[in-house]
């Protein structure tokens, strides 16, 4: 059975079916979305469980002719790096649909665009042809403008105003600007390799001479890096995430930023290993700035959602640091961090959404003692916070620990800076917990209540994944390691 095509088509068909449902029948629309999302989760679990990590390499391969004249084929396949990403997407769209259950405004358009977004994301993770990878990469960006601009929320603190239209436009322009660099890079590889094909497997790891690799690699590093939140191109990310509606923030911070990181691995390091080697010291510096700068920025925010937004910038820094080590430990930590951060930040955004839906403000200074009225939310928030701080027993610990070990093996100084970043993380998370959830209950929040059963269910799924991976990371690590091995094989200095 062509599983990967099914994973791609299921959310897409879901969107098509929703298009045919009259917009007044909101429940039917949501049920279709939920069925499509559950099916996607089921298929991605199936792919994850049946991926043979002992054999490694690309599996579930499908190839269809598309434009043979231009060297473009519809070539799908997953390896140990994309399998966890597919699973991550499945989990988050599943939770996301239920968290967006109460969307009232133009629900039809919302779920169509949401499912289209998932199609794009899945497509990037499973495409082995540069044309289609880029196709789906842009497809994932396209619905964002409308999703944020129509259903998002503005941030207004008197002196600090960010409208949702601003966030949407900024995000779109930044991401498409990044994709322009990626596009130039792809055509440069296509031309310089002279093989007349966009197939990444056929292009292999040394289609370009080392000099050309070093020349082209920065295009991919910065182009994909924009989406990964790479400093100094990260500023769209807090603005965009804050403006987006909850489910979209979850998908965006949870999965879309991982597309950028994934692009750096799959296209950058995968096609241009020697180029990667030359540029990795720079990435180490930038990634470390991401960690520390993101954490410090998070420390000084008043808007609850901006704290989470900047924490994403900070945590993506660990992913980039892990890449920059170019050793198996650091890289596998980075990929695990992609998964772990995806789940964690989705949970964060979901919980912030619960609070905002009920309190209609996200101003940290106005809260206090919410735990007394929103016990479940507080408990889940604590779990997400502890994951963010890298506490043992939760998925963040394993990931960050591996990244630190890898960094100390290669760049000890930056390892120390990274740990300093983790310390700042602890400060802003604890500050947030103390300010918002604990202490005496502010009387104006007497009327708040815990999330609905559907919302609790959706966020509980995320909490369980965080705990499960923290306690038993072996299955994920086995897959990831099988993908990292061949990736680093072509790099002389790696190891």
């Amino acid at each position, binding site marked *: 059975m062509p599983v990967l095509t099914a994973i791609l088509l299921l959310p897409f068909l879901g969107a098509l079916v929703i298009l045919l449902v009259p917009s007044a029948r909101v429940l039917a629309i949501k049920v279709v979305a939920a069925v499509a999302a559950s099916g996607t989760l089921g298929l991605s679990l199936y792919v994850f469980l049946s991926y043979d990590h002992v054999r490694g390499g690309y599996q579930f391969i499908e190839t269809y002719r598309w434009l043979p004249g231009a060297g473009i084929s519809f070539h799908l396949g997953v390896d140990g790096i994309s399998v966890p990403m597919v699973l991550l997407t499945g989990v988050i769209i599943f939770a996301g649909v239920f968290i967006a259950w109460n969307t009232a405004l133009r629900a039809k358009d919302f779920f169509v665009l949401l499912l289209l977004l998932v199609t794009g994301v899945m497509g990037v993770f499973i495409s082995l042809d540069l044309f289609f990878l880029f196709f789906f990469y842009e497809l994932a960006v396209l619905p964002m403008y409308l999703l944020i601009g129509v259903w998002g929320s503005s941030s207004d603190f008197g002196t600090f105003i960010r409208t949702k239209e601003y966030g949407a436009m900024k995000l779109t*322009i930044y991401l498409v600007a990044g994709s322009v660099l990626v596009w130039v890079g792809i055509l440069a590889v296509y031309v310089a390799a002279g093989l007349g094909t966009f197939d990444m497997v056929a292009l292999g790891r040394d289609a370009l001479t080392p000099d050309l690799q070093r020349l082209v690699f920065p295009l991919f590093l910065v182009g994909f890096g924009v989406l990964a939140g790479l400093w100094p191109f990260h500023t769209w990310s807090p603005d965009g995430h804050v403006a987006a509606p909850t489910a979209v923030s979850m998908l965006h911070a949870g999965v879309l930023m991982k597309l950028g990181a994934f692009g750096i691995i799959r296209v950058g390091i995968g096609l241009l290993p020697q180029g990667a080697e030359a540029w990795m010291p720079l990435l180490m510096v930038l990634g470390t700035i991401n960690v520390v700068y993101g954490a410090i920025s998070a420390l000084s925010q008043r808007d609850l959602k901006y704290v989470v937004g900047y924490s994403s910038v900070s945590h993506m820094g660990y992913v980039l640091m892990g890449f920059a080590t170019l050793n198996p430990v650091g890289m596998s930590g980075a990929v695990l961090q992609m998964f772990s951060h995806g789940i964690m930040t989705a949970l964060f955004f979901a919980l912030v959404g619960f609070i905002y839906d009920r309190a209609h403000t996200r101003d940290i200074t106005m809260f206090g003692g919410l735990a007394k009225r929103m016990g479940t939310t507080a408990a889940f928030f604590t779990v997400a916070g502890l994951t963010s701080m890298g506490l043992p027993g939760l998925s963040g610990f394993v990931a960050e620990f591996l990244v630190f070990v890898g960094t100390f093996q290669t760049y000890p100084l930056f390892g120390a800076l990274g740990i300093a970043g983790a310390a700042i993380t602890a400060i802003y998370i604890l500050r947030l917990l103390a300010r918002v959830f604990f202490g005496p209950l502010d009387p104006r929040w007497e009327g708040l209540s815990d999330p609905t059963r559907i919302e609790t269910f959706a966020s509980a799924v995320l909490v369980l994944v965080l705990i499960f991976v923290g306690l038993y990371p072996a299955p994920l690590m086995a897959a990831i390691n099988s993908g990292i091995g061949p990736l680093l094989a072509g790099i002389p200095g790696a190891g």
Partner: protein
Amino acid sequence: MNLWLFLPEFLVAGLAFLILGTDLVLPPARKSLLAYGGALGLGGIMAATLTLQGEEARLYGGLFLVDGYALFFKEFFLLLGILILLASVEFVEKNLSHAGEYYGLILFSVLAMMLMTASGELLTAYISLELLSFCLYILASYGLHDPRSNEAGVKFILLGAFSSAILLYGLSLVYGLAGTTEFVAIAGVLGSGEDLGPGLLVGLVLVIAGFGFKVAAVPFHMWAPDVYEGAPLPITAYLSVASKAAAFALLLRLFAVAFMPAMDEWRGIMAGLAAVTMTVGNLVAIPQRNIKRLLAYSSIGQAGYLLVGLAALSPMASSGMVFHLAGFAVTNLAAFVAIIAYYNLSGKEDIPDYAGLAERSPLLATTLAVAFFSLAGLPFFAGFTTKFYLFAAAAREGLLWLVALAMVNSLISLYYYLLVIKQMYMVPPSEPGRLRVPGLLKGILVLLLFGIVIIGIYPAPLLEAIDGATRFLFP
């Protein structure tokens, strides 16, 4: 000689006269029958033209060519003619008088475009081009009582005549040096290695400038925004899609067949023209308030992308250019038909008037959004696939810098398209009430949307047909 080979041209000319004649006896209330009849007739001619498939002939010593390239474009223009006729009906009823001549002139211009793609010699090409231009001059000024339309007509005629003079002068220089006006023979002289002196360069520059006017390339684009804004809406659509496509079809054959051996002389000029055209077109589009002017400048930008294909001019690049042309035609037509439908319902054409369109008419808003995403080159839609293919082909010819500039331009264009999309989706409507698009336009819109998506995700059949057509340029 086989007169059968002229079948499509004879039929279109006959149909045009038939429409003009019928107009004399038809009561004013039933003039729309002329458009339906014309569209039906063109549909029949499309089928009849297919009988010429596989025919290859050079008639009158190479004046008139029958080959796969001409055949492809003939079918293309017939299809565009049908769509424009049908999209015009309601607009003409509401806004214009003398419907019969309007439809007749559209048919004559279709004939002219068909002749342009079939001409294999400079003067035939020029005469066909003039036939097209004269039809368009009249059509652009068809809004008798609208001062903007009159201004558009006058501007169009003056600048058009001016550009024709330049083009003719260029052609005469080429003729003087080459001693022939036939494309293949010119290539023979240019390829003989004989030094033709600086006259050739001057001639080529003048030819490029003359055609630059016709395709509205910067710095010869000044007429376009005013004419686009003043002409009746369906004619604006026609100008931006069909006449541009015809000029590019002729340019491609002229440069690929006749001027190919002198490529080193003109390649840099063409690349520079492409760079300036797309950059200026897209930058100036940003501050526009009128949607027709916005699309006029965006079409100028698109002409820049097409010129990239001309600057690369490999077999793959020319396929890419025709491919992008086809995708652009479908996309731009979709945008214009939506704008026509909105104008018919509201009489408005400024961008702020589109506020809240997503609530008042989801179909129109979706069509415009999809068309704009496609024009900006976002995937799932025609623009992404055609641009990717065209740019890949140009990059292969060593024009990566130009391609990179074109991509940056796509980004700029996305910005102003998003501004319109923002009006439609994020700003609340200024007037309440849903808009009801009539069935015919609805059908055309759905068809064009379908076309945009099909070209975007399953382009193989179209591209195969195009490869089959451009093969004749590179024997």
